[in-house]
């Protein structure tokens, strides 16, 4: 069982999955950091993005990676409009109402997908999706490694956006103190919508990276929301690097858990970490005490 080739493969495989989890969790964390709400529609929006990739590949014959430049801005625009027209209007500025509105959006999107596409599981076939790459003694699917590389690049770009642009500074200012940000002339409502848009755009990228080795169905987002939420709690609510390292850690825990305990029981590790974090360090690994 402890042969190096098998352990290495499982570890690298976990890290590759973890990179994509981190990207999904970063979107959730960013929205939490700015809007101070857990976006319950995050999983349903990922599902919608996965369907978009599926149809771009299946109907338009596009390569899933070539869909990234289309889907990221499209998802961002959809996220912006969704926040401006639905979330902001329906919640009337009350944070607890925002929570309920995002839950409502999730229910509507999932049932819409069920009505339009039925509950069938859909996958795409690409010629290269199953080609293998040797990483040390381990063999790994090229598409997994490509997804991990793409996710890491997206994380780096997101980091640059948050740290080095005016928009990033505005987002951080609103996250820290929205009243003070308003006083210095930042359009807080616009920043809210932009943060929501960026959170949704990360899902657009994640969907393109995921689909070659994953599937889409109306319920596909559930698993991701649970994992992303665990990562955000583990890393510290709203913490950028917390979400990143948390994602990698959860990916590895899931993979090694699957190897040693089996596919079904392997998930136990993720939720054990979730409970342990809440009990022992409620602020998360990188979070600050409030």
């Amino acid at each position, binding site marked *: *069982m402890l*042969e190096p080739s*098998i352990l290495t*493969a*499982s570890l690298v*495989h976990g890290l590759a*999955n973890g990179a994509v989890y981190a990207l999904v969790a970063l979107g959730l964390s960013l929205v939490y950091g700015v809007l101070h709400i857990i976006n319950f529609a995050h999983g349903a929006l990922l599902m919608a993005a996965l369907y978009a990739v599926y149809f771009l590949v299946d109907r338009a014959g596009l390569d899933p990676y070539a869909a990234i430049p289309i889907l990221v801005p499209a998802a961002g625009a959809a996220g912006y409009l969704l926040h401006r027209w639905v979330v902001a209007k329906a919640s009337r500025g009350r944070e607890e109402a925002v929570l309920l509105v995002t839950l409502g959006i999730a229910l509507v999107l999932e049932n819409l997908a*069920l009505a339009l596409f*039925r*509950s069938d*599981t859909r*996958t795409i*076939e690409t010629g290269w999706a*199953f080609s*293998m790459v040797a990483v040390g003694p381990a*063999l*790994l*699917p090229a598409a*997994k490694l490509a997804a991990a590389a793409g996710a890491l690049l997206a994380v780096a770009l997101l980091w640059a956006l948050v740290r080095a642009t005016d928009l990033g500074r505005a987002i951080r200012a609103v996250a820290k103190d929205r009243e003070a940000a308003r006083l210095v002339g930042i359009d807080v409502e616009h920043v809210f919508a932009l943060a929501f848009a960026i959170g949704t755009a990360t899902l657009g990228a994640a969907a393109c990276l995921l689909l070659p*080795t*994953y*599937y889409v*169905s109306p319920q596909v987002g559930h698993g991701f929301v649970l994992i992303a939420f665990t990562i955000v709690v583990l890393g510290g609510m709203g913490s950028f690097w917390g979400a990143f390292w948390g994602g990698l850690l959860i990916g590895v825990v899931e*993979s090694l858990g*699957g*190897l040693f305990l*089996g*596919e*079904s029981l*392997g998930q136990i590790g993720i939720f054990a970490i979730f409970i342990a974090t809440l009990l022992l360090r409620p602020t998360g690994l990188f979070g600050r005490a409030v």
Partner: protein
Amino acid sequence: MLGDAQSKPEVGAAEVEKMNEAGVAAIIGAFSSAISLATTQSAARYGIPHIVDVGVSDQIVQRGLTNTFRFCPGYGLIAQIAIDNLVALNDAAGKPARTVAIVHEESLFGTGTAQLLQKELPARGFEVVEVAKHANPTRDFTNLVLKLKALAPDIVIPANYYNEYVLLARTMRQQGVRPKAIYSVLGGAASSFKFVKEFPEDAAYIMDCNHWYDPRKAEALELRRKVEARGLYYTYEVFLAHEAVRLLADALERAGSASRERIVEALATSRWDGHFMPYGPTRFVNGQNEGARPVNTQVLNGTIEVIFPAEFASARPVFPMPRA
């Protein structure tokens, strides 16, 4: 009427309610064991005759429901015949295989089949080194296959649905896991022309004990031609559903009415031999067609050949399968 169960038993049961209100005379369905359990029970409340086309769980016909009729064999019999044939195969080859790993899906069909195999195989000289359950859907078998690689079983027995079966077989080949046989019991893809056509290298030499038509019957081959002419694959759910419809048609003719009671009676006394399955005339005991039998197939030279039973085998089994 068509009802979409959305892969959920409760939705299947709700569809039966709608069908009852619409006054249907009979129901055929529902492919999955878990859904068939729910739909047959709902149909029983209204006395609607229900022909189960594919659901293999034996519980379906063990609840005393007089409205429920299953044309195909259940997993108890299929697992038994699969083990008998595996033993015969292994003995004929000089017993090269001793260890077995079972990979099954999490619902009633996979779990029930795996439990039967796990119980029976040790009594027949095999050691079960791993029983791995996976969710539906699963889109990543890397860990499971790595575990198989470490255990190196002589035989891998998958019992799961199409997508997961294909992915498992492909991942096994990619990770260089090459047992002496991949021997499925009700393998979702092992007896599928789609799998053989799309992934011939992954499908090569895979054996399966599954539902299959009698290749000596002209009607079976004619239906295959028609199905393939429409660009579809001739899978077991296609020919089993087709024959379930013809079974109902025969019962309707003999009942001479659309009365639910009369159709139930006609099905219970059915001795229909106009079908193209290798079953003999229908004879339902507690709702189970007693003559129903599976066959063993193997993917050889890019097509699916019947290897057992001997009376209509189209090829000799290749076991152990050649190294890559």
